[in-house]
């Protein structure tokens, strides 16, 4: 790793993109570039967080995100514990705060949490000393996802300023979308949200995004087409008639991709519903950067842990 940056974030917690300035985001992305060199070389480990303990506490299952955080922590030489919520007393009436205080008392320096309630991390961050890292709170934010997405776009397109990014799908229920709208607009991208009115309410304009309901028209001249995973349980609800209709109106295939710029890239936070939001041909296109996103996730999460206030053992 060859970074001479000794910048640091002001906060002990990574709660959301909301709390990060443009400079903070760029600091994380620049550091992630250095960490990407680490994770792509033969010896993939640095001693930065030796002696520190990272606890993964996932109230919603997500093997991908948890594994990514685990790898990031291990490559910084931290000790990692995956706290199994399913078999813990959390389900025996112990409160969220009690659980996190217990984990903190065991010596955790970082607690990486995914929780189904929006604002859970702000609530915890106020009350515990450990660094709280948000790995997803309800429908609110998923900041490391947005950071790795911005990192991936930067890798492919350079600066985000002036780029047209289309986010397609169930924006209403998506923490990935919220964090990305915040991060991308902060970096100067123009964000267009695409989907049916029930899943893309007008109120999102107040976050600085444009809204389109017609996919072909919406992705015209796009530099990035970011497809969200459609939750299968949405079909037949009050919000979406069927997956068949959704696929026809908003599914992305190679043919539809021609409306975007020729060098546009396709992204997706995973896991993909093949044949629903993304067709096989679109998935296999060289424009698709989904595996890059996964690789970059580790580097970006390393950068986040490295940069949080009070994180490092020895300051340079």
């Amino acid at each position, binding site marked *: 790793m060859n970074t001479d940056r000794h910048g640091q974030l002001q906060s002990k917690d990574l709660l959301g993109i909301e709390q990060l300035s443009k400079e903070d985001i760029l600091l994380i992305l620049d550091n992630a570039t250095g960490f990407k060199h680490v994770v792509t070389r033969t010896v993939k480990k640095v001693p930065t967080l030796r002696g520190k303990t990272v606890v993964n506490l996932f109230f919603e299952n997500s093997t991908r995100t948890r594994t990514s955080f685990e790898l990031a922590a291990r490559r910084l030489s931290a000790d990692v514990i995956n706290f199994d919520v399913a078999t813990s007393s959390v389900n025996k009436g112990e409160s969220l705060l009690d659980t996190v205080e217990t984990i903190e008392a065991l010596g955790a320096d970082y607690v990486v949490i995914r*929780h189904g309630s*929006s*604002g859970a991390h*702000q609530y915890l961050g106020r009350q515990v000393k450990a660094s709280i890292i948000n790995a997803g709170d*309800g429908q*609110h934010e998923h900041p490391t996802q947005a950071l790795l997405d911005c990192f991936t776009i930067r890798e492919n397109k350079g600066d985000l300023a002036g780029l047209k990014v289309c986010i397609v799908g169930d924006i209403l229920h998506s923490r990935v979308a919220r964090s990305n709208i915040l991060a991308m607009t902060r970096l100067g991208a123009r964000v267009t949200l695409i989907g049916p009115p029930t899943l893309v309410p007008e109120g999102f304009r107040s976050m600085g995004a444009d809204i389109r309901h017609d996919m072909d028209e919406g992705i015209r001249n796009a530099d990035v087409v970011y497809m969200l995973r459609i939750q299968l349980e949405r079909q037949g609800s009050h919000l979406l008639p069927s997956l068949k209709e959704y696929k026809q109106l908003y599914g992305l295939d190679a043919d539809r991709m021609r409306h975007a710029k020729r060098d546009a890239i396709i992204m997706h936070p995973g896991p993909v519903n093949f044949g629903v939001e993304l067709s096989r041909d679109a998935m296999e296109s060289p424009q698709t950067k989904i595996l890059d996103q996964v690789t970059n996730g580790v580097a970006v999460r390393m950068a986040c842990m490295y940069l949080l206030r009070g994180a490092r053992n020895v300051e340079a």
Partner: protein
Amino acid sequence: MKPESLVIANATVVDPSQGLHSEMHVVVENGVIADISRSMPETAGRRVVDAKGLHLAAGFVDLRTHLREPGGEGSETIESGTRAAAAGGFTTIHAMANTSPVCDSTTGVQYVLSRAADTGCVNVVPVAAVTRGQEGREMVNFGVLRRAGVGAFSDSVHPVRNADMMRRALEYTRMVGVPIMEHCQDLDLAGEGVMHEGEVSLRLGLRGIPRIAESVVVARDVALAAATGGHVHISHVSTRESVKAIREAKLDGVRVTAETTPHHLTMTDADVEGYNTLAKVKPPLCGEADRLALLEGLEDGTIDCIATDHAPHPAAEKNKVFDAAPFGIIGLESCFPLLYTRFVESGRWDLDFLIERLTVKPAEVVGGRWGTLRTGQPADMVLIQTGVSYEFERRHLRSKCSNCPWLGETFGARIAATFVNGSAVFVNEEAFPKGLAAARKEAR
């Protein structure tokens, strides 16, 4: 045993029910207002409270108070809730039926009345459920419960979901002579929402309750009231569409009355920012345009009165993630000083208007005798001190709970003392540092 006779001397009497606003003396005999006049009455043998510089009004009437007893004594009891009422200048409060068990029977009504007589310090009027168990299926015994002392009927925190049930209830209660108070919220539209659906909820990723969840039920209820001639009272109005629907119905002569709350008059969904559970309430705090429409509705008479919807929840319950925290705000102690500071001190209202909306107007909704200082009425009175400035703190609360979003705010008025049937049930030591006795003086 006869209560002594008392003179409240030199107070500025503000009684909108009689159009009074001047310095007067009030004589209380046997707990009843015996005389109110500009000349000093005979004071020999009477206790005299010199209230020079204070305002005297009829005690406030709250149409919506959650006392939690029976079943929720950890949050509030009739004793603590009535103490909170007295500290806020309320002398008559309407106890909501959502206790455990639900107040839907004569036994339940008698329990509230007997506990109030034994432990309470202000008048407590039970509000019984409209349907047994608030389950929306079977009517309660409206006539029997009215005779047992019920002041109104309400399924409290639930709407009467079935339109036919609401129709029949309004038809039936027409002969009973008390209103049905409705918590207007379409449960399908409200869904699992935890705050007002709008830009703030979208940004915070919290599930929204759309504004129409209230107004579609208001529209239904005023149509049913029009068709039946029954009296529907819309509780805690929160949106501009509801105000419009009520205004139009009143113009058409429908028997509809309405209230709004101190929090809906002073707060918006922006107060939820930071996942502030103290601002989590039903109906949810809406936008600024709604708040302004509520003010206008209150001012033009569309909304008859102010009710606190005092809803105590322990700190341990409120200090949870937003989704898990209960809905509710306590309002008895803060209601008057808050509204005085925001709207009277700022010059938007005169004191008479605020007092009218807290006394005679809510009393009229339920056909109560309270809210006036007319001679012959029970001496339920409040002394008010204005022109002060202090920080509202936990020590000003008498409720068992402190889920009050205005702690730390600077207020410009305080309740100095509260009387029920001529007896002091609250004396504010900040207004009377040496007690009421020091303010008493013998006749010249």
